[in-house]
């Protein structure tokens, strides 16, 4: 093997390496896959601008879900911090071709909240949270959140009331299929089939919200 030699002085560098790069996602509206990837790479690097951009877009629905599932503003705040930290840890594995950034973050949030509920003694079921504060005026970065909500509400309209209740009991109530089957005195297989059918209906209704 060749021994390492001192570097030659004045060695040429390829000019394109010197170009400045900056994080420049669009300020509002749904992000393109490339922009989502760019934000996630910024997050991975601990870039404060990227973290703030992600926070501006997604903190509110994450905090809302945390409040809904965990029952206190303090727990929801901890969850929100944990979600962004977990997202930083998992950032290298985010693949925009397999789903939107918002869905990825919300799945992390839900999983962390459910794990926390299971760990905490005495908390068996999340309870409904009523919030009487006046919502803040939404910033431009939260336009996507509003659109997501609008699309989500329309997607859920594709479900019957019974299907909505079933999914809500599982997603918000933390009830397993077996627990629902026992409560309703119906076969376990029937509950699983109904869960899947309802989720597929939502998925189909969601098709038109795919990335621009």
């Amino acid at each position, binding site marked *: 093997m060749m021994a*390492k030699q001192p*570097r030659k002085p004045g060695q*040429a560098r390829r000019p*394109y390496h010197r*170009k400045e790069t900056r994080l420049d996602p669009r300020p509002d509206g749904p992000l393109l896959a490339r922009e989502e990837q760019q934000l996630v790479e910024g997050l991975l690097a601990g870039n404060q601008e990227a973290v703030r951009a992600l926070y501006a877009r997604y903190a509110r629905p994450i905090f809302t879900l945390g409040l809904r599932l965990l029952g206190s503003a303090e727990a929801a705040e901890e969850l929100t911090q944990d979600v962004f930290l977990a997202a930083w840890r998992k950032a290298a594995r985010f693949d925009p071709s397999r789903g939107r950034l918002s869905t990825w973050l919300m799945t992390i949030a839900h999983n962390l909240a459910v794990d926390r509920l299971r760990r905490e003694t005495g908390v068996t079921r999340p309870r409904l949270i009523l919030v009487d504060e006046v919502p803040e005026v939404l910033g431009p970065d939260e336009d996507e959140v509003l659109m997501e*909500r609008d699309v989500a509400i329309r997607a859920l309209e594709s479900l019957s009331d019974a299907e909505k209740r079933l999914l809500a009991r599982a997603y918000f109530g933390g009830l397993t299929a077996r627990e629902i089957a026992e409560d309703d005195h119906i076969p376990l297989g029937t509950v699983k089939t109904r869960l899947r059918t309802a989720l597929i209906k939502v998925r189909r209704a*969601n098709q038109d919200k795919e990335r621009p």
Partner: protein
Amino acid sequence: MTCLEVRELLPELAVGVLSPEDRERAERHLQWCAGCRKEATDLGSAAATFAFALEPVPVPQGLGDRVVARVHRAAGAPGTSRRARMAAAAVVAAMVAVTSLGWGAVMAGRADRFAERAERAEREQAAALERFQRILAGVIPGQQLPDDETHLGQLALVAGGSGGGAVLQLVSPTILDFVIVIVSGLDPVQGSMPYRVRLVNARGDVLRAGRIDELDADGGAEAYHQFKTADLTGYTTVDVVDATGAVVLSGVVDQSA
């Protein structure tokens, strides 16, 4: 577990109520089954719709600053090997994206049509290389790394194998040489693991460049190796071989670039 058994669990996995044991069993299956993984992704996306439908509530003042500070602290902490590997994964993934942006078409003479994409690709490549430099600077504190000594190659499927990947070499006359290999879509079945990475030069000399003992849900992994004495000059062929010695992925790094 069979696909049928796993698919029965997927709705509960999507809504987050599967028992830890069943979740682990399902996740293991999803590591290698693309069909079930697709179904799991679709159902999970549908379940998240419920979260988006909630009436948004205001977030506490100052929470944004605390989130930013926490992530910034974690990202700026003394580099762990895991963090370096993750960052490297993102860099090389970005490079793979760059190489698929249409350079072939540009070379074919349709430069006008693809000029914008080419410029973007160049910017992204520049950004990727800058980040790669920062990663390596973190690995060797205080060392400024020459940006003209990093070389990229893609790993392509060999008959009988699965997946794909990318490789980045640092070949430097002044500092220790590195190789980082990112793979995805490898088969995790028993008998294939562990995978090994090897570098081969024109004379057929072989250097071992890492071992892959674990794959993620996408059959992906990163192998990172620093060569204390060997010089990677000329070791342009990169192979990923399975436990039986069969080459499953192979590629060539252009060290002249």
